[in-house]
C-alpha cells in the first residue's frame, strides 16, 4: 500500500476556509457567499416580517390603535422594499451561488471576486434603506412603487432611498452577469444546456431578466432624483413632463421583477417534485421553453398594472391579451409538475409538502391574476385589498414556499445534518394554515371595496381584518420554528446526512459528500 503525499507548492490554495470574520468578508468561495446571501435573506425575512406585523396589528380593528397613519405608510413601503430586494432576491441568489456551480460541475462562479462584491454591496444598501427610519420625515411612505409626485414629498430619506435602490440594482446586475457567464462558460464536459437541472435553467433565464430590467429601475429612480434636486421635469406636468411616464418605466422593470422572484422558485419545485416522486421530471424540454416563454411575455405586459390611468382601448386589449397568454406556459408547468407526480412513488417529506402546497396555492394566486388581467374588471379591483391578496398568494405560498422547499431540500447537503423532520412538518402545517388564514379573507375585503394602504377602515371590514391579523401573527410565530430548525442543523444537532440525502435524487450536487466540501469539482466531472 502506498501513501500519496501532496508536495505541490500551491497546496495551500486548496486548503479550507480562513478563520474568523475575515473568512466572510474576503471570501470568494461560492458556498461561503451563498451562505452569506441566505443568512442575510433570513435576517431580512424577520425584519420585513416584523413590519408586516405592525401593519396587521394596526388593522386588527378599525380606528387608529398603535401607529399614526404616516408611520403606517412607512411600514407598508419598507415591508415591500425589504421583502422584495432584501429577502427573496438574496435568498434565491444564495441558492444560486450554492447550487449552480455544484449542478453544472464547476469549481466556483466565473468571477469569484465580483461575487464577493455583489454580496457585500447588499448589507450597505439594506442599512442605508433601514437608516431612513430615523431621518427627519421618516422612511419612504409612498409605496414600493415610488410613484411621483407622491414620492417627491418624502423627506430627507428620498436620496437615501434612491441610492440604496441604485446599490441593490448594481448588486443584482453584477450577480446576474456572473451567473450567466458561469452557466455559459463553466459547465463540466458533457453538461450540455439541455442536460442542466431546471434550477440552473430557471436562474439562467432569471439572470437575463435581471440584466434587462434592473437598469430600467435605476434609470427611473435617477430621473426622480434629477426631478427633485436638479430642476428637470420628467414626471412633472407643470414642466412638460408626465407622471404616468414613471409608471410605465417602473412597471417595465416591475413586472419582470415578479418573474425574477418566481422563476427560481419554479426551478426549485422542478427539482423537489421529481425527487420525491422518484420519477424524472415530465416534459423537461417543455419546462425550459415554458420558462423562456414566461420570461419573454413578462417583458410585454407591464401596463396591466396601470389599466386605470386612461390608456387607449388598443393598449388595454394588447396588455390584457398578452397577460392572459402567460397562463399558457404557466399551465404547461403546472401540468408537468402534476404529471411528474402521476403514478410516482410519492413520499411527503417537508420539501415535498412545501412543493405540493406551492402547486395549489400559487395556482390560486395565478387565477386571481387572470381575473385582474381583464381590463374592465381590473378597474374595480385596482388598488383594493383584492390586489394585496393576489400578490401575496403569488409571493408567499409561491416564492417563499419555493425558497422554503429549497431550504429543506438542500439544507442536509449544505450543513451535513438532516433537519428535524417533525419540526419541519410542524412548520409546514402551521405556515400553510396561517398563510391562508392571513391572505384568503383579503380577497373578500377587496371585493367588498376595502382600499389597500390605509391604516383605518369602515366597520363592515372588521371581521375579515381581524381574521387576517390573527393569521399573520400565527404565520410569523411559525417561522420561529424554521429559525430553530436552521440553527439546529448548522450546530449539527441531528442525524448525519448521507451523501445522496434522498432516494436517488438527480443532479451533480448529490455526488459530492455532505456537507459539501469547501472546494468541489476542482477536476471537472464527466457528464454522460
Amino acid at each position, binding site marked *: 500500500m502506498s501513501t500519496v503525499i501532496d508536495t505541490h507548492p500551491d497546496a495551500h490554495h486548496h486548503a479550507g476556509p480562513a478563520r474568523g470574520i475575515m473568512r466572510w468578508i474576503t471570501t470568494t468561495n461560492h458556498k461561503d457567499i451563498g451562505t452569506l446571501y441566505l443568512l442575510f435573506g433570513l435576517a431580512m425575512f424577520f425584519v420585513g416580517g416584523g413590519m408586516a406585523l405592525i401593519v396587521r396589528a394596526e388593522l386588527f380593528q378599525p380606528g387608529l390603535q398603535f401607529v399614526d397613519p404616516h408611520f403606517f405608510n412607512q411600514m407598508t413601503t419598507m415591508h415591500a422594499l425589504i421583502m422584495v430586494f432584501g429577502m427573496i432576491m438574496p435568498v434565491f441568489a444564495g441558492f444560486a451561488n450554492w447550487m449552480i456551480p455544484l449542478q453544472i460541475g464547476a*469549481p466556483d462562479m466565473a468571477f*469569484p471576486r465580483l461575487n464577493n462584491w455583489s454580496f457585500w454591496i447588499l448589507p450597505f444598501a439594506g442599512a442605508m434603506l433601514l437608516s431612513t427610519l430615523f431621518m427627519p420625515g421618516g422612511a419612504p411612505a409612498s409605496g414600493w412603487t415610488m410613484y411621483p409626485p407622491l414620492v417627491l414629498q418624502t423627506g430627507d430619506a428620498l436620496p437615501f432611498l434612491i441610492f440604496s435602490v441604485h446599490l441593490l440594482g448594481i448588486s443584482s446586475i453584477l450577480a446576474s452577469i456572473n451567473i*450567466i457567464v458561469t452557466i455559459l*462558460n463553466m459547465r463540466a464536459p458533457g453538461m450540455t444546456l439541455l442536460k442542466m437541472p431546471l434550477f440552473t435553467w430557471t436562474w439562467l433565464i432569471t439572470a437575463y431578466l435581471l440584466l434587462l430590467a434592473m437598469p430600467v429601475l435605476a434609470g427611473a429612480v435617477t430621473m426622480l432624483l434629477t426631478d427633485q434636486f436638479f430642476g428637470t421635469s420628467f414626471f412633472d406636468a407643470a414642466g412638460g413632463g408626465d407622471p404616468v411616464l414613471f409608471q410605465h418605466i417602473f412597471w417595465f422593470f416591475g413586472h419582470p421583477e415578479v418573474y425574477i422572484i418566481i422563476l427560481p422558485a419554479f426551478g426549485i419545485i422542478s427539482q423537489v417534485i421529481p425527487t420525491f416522486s422518484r420519477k424524472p421530471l415530465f416534459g423537461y424540454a417543455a419546462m425550459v421553453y415554458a420558462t423562456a416563454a414566461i420570461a419573454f411575455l413578462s417583458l410585454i405586459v407591464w401596463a396591466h398594472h396601470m389599466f386605470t390611468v386612461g390608456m387607449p382601448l388598443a393598449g388595454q386589449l394588447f396588455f390584457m391579451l398578452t397577460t392572459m397568454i402567460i397562463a399558457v406556459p404557466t399551465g404547461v408547468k403546472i401540468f408537468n409538475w402534476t404529471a411528474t407526480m402521476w403514478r410516482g412513488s410519492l413520499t411527503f417529506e417537508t420539501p415535498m409538502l412545501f412543493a405540493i402546497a406551492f402547486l395549489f396555492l400559487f395556482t390560486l394566486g395565478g387565477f386571481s391574476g387572470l381575473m385582474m388581467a381583464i381590463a374592465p374588471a381590473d378597474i374595480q379591483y385596482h388598488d383594493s385589498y383584492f390586489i394585496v391578496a393576489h400578490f401575496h398568494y403569488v409571493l408567499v405560498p409561491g416564492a417563499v414556499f419555493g425558497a422554503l422547499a429549497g431550504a429543506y431540500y438542500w439544507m442536509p447537503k449544505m450543513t451535513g445534518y438532516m433537519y428535524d423532520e417533525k419540526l419541519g412538518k410542524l412548520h409546514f402545517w402551521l405556515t400553510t394554515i396561517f398563510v391562508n388564514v392571513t391572505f384568503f379573507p383579503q380577497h373578500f375585503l377587496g371585493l367588498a371595496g376595502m382600499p389597500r394602504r390605509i391604516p383605518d377602515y369602515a366597520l363592515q371590514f372588521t371581521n375579515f381584518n381581524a381574521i387576517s391579523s390573527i393569521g399573520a401573527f400565527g404565520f410569523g410565530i411559525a417561522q420561529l420554528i424554521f429559525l430553530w430548525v436552521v440553527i439546529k442543523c448548522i450546530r449539527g444537532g441531528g442525524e448525519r446526512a448521507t451523501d445522496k440525502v434522498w432516494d436517488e435524487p438527480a443532479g451533480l450536487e448529490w455526488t459530492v459528500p455532505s456537507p459539501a466540501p469547501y472546494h468541489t469539482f476542482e477536476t471537472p466531472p464527466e457528464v454522460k
Partner: protein
Amino acid sequence: MAKLAAMDPQRRARSIRIALAHVAVVLLIYLAFIAKQALFGGG
C-alpha cells in the same frame, strides 16, 4: 481561492468576453431606444 476558477487563462478570457458582450448588448438596446425616442419622439 479565486485561483480555482481562474486556473485556465483561456477559459477566464472567454468568461470576460462573454460578460462584456452581454453588457454591450444591453447598452446597445437601451441606446437604440433612447435614440429612437430622441429622433422620432415618444409614443
